[in-house]
């Protein structure tokens, strides 16, 4: 942003809010990466760390909500500032849910670490990488106010969904072949589902970024076909 607000304290409040959202986004990115690595590397300690750190994400959600309310009440933001605040209020909910999904995966990781390894988990790792990249790109689009980047997130979500379906079918086959694998395969299936949902939340963030920059709502566009 080149132009700054005449009221420097207002400018500082908006800046601080943006920084906090990025901090929260960074924590969630680390959480999803850590939770999946914990599954792949059978590292329960890493999973426990993800679960503990979610408290920080939750606290940031409350802080950011409060900051948005204060700015709405005291500054009466307009135009792009108003869109930034309403976008922040929505993004923060998605980020918090994404943090919870990482915690769910981490809980599965703790469980899985205590049982024999099922089979190589390449696709789960790839699914995690796609979800993580979707959030990273959505956050990048948010900071740089770049709707084109945000649109890329929307497009990439189809790959994520396709990969999820592949992982799902593979795990289903594993279960049919060996009933003793059902418990572990179910855990992995839930984790894959969480990653797919994680990607959907990243899509929500990207859609809100497009609204923030352009002022047009692109949600539910597919339903209009």
């Amino acid at each position, binding site marked *: 942003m080149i*132009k*700054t*607000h*005449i*009221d420097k304290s*207002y400018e500082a409040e908006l800046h601080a809010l943006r920084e906090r959202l990025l901090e929260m986004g960074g924590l969630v990115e680390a959480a999803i990466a850590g939770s999946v690595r914990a599954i792949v590397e059978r590292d329960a300690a890493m999973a426990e760390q993800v679960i503990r750190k979610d408290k920080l994400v939750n606290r940031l959600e409350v802080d950011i909500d409060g900051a948005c309310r204060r700015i709405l009440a005291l500054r*009466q*933001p*307009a*135009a*792009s*500032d*108003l*869109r930034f605040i309403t976008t922040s209020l929505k993004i923060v909910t998605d980020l918090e849910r994404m943090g919870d999904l990482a915690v769910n995966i981490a809980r599965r990781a703790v469980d899985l670490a205590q049982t024999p390894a099922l089979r190589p988990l390449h696709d789960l790792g790839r699914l995690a990488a796609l979800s993580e990249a979707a959030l990273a790109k959505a956050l990048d689009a948010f900071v740089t106010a770049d709707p084109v980047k945000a649109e890329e997130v929307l497009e990439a979500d189809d790959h994520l969904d396709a990969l999820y379906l592949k992982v799902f079918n593979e795990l289903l086959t594993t279960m049919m072949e060996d009933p003793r694998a059902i418990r572990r395969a179910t855990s992995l299936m839930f984790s894959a589902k969480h990653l797919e949902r994680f990607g959907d939340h990243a899509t929500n963030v990207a859609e809100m970024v497009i609204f923030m920059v352009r*002022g047009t709502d692109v949600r539910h566009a597919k339903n209009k076909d």
Partner: protein
Amino acid sequence: MEARKLQVAYGEKIAVKDVDLVLPEKQVTALIGPSGCGKSTFLRALNRMNDLIPGASMKGEVLLDGESVVDGRLDAVELRRRVGMVFQKSNPFPKSIFENVAYGLRVAGLNDRTLLLERVIRSLQGAALWEEVKDRLQENALGLSGGQQQRLCIARALAVQPEVLLMDEPASALDPLATAKIEDLIHELKARYTIAIVTHNMQQAARVSDTTAFFYMGELVEVGSTEQIFTNPREPRTEDYVTGKFG
């Protein structure tokens, strides 16, 4: 009411440049912009108040019900009856409350005591002041509070049954409660009158108007629905102004 290619100058200095603006009937149009942007000059041009300023000149067209108000066929007194004005500083005459409202009617030749009283009551009711002054119509208007004086000025403008009401910062000298009363009144008045309001208070513009016009350095930069101007303005200059940024 509408302006077409309206230009107003004070001597050599052009204060309003080529403005095309329609005030939609029975709606509130807010004129916003920084000091010196031409919004008040534009407002005053609509009922030719600028004629009273030495050196002021006007080009272009202002139409009331499709008829020109600048070509001289419409008498300025008649124009100002049809297009009333309320100013920033309430300016009641040092007379009774009754006489303040009756003044314009007497000038227009109405002297029948019963008819006068009827019109004064209706105007005071229209300005949401009747309940507060009905027992003291003969008291001096200068004894009223600032907010009441401003509503008295609105009643005075309403008495001569105008079509358009021009308001130049009508609430800028009032406390928040008196301001809320004026704003509430504006909402009621727009059922019967076309209203244009100049205000520095952007939240006020957002609250009371249907359409907002942003003026900058004598130009009309952008006009649109108030919601659009305050949530998603098209022009960067409008965006900077409503968000309070350095130009």
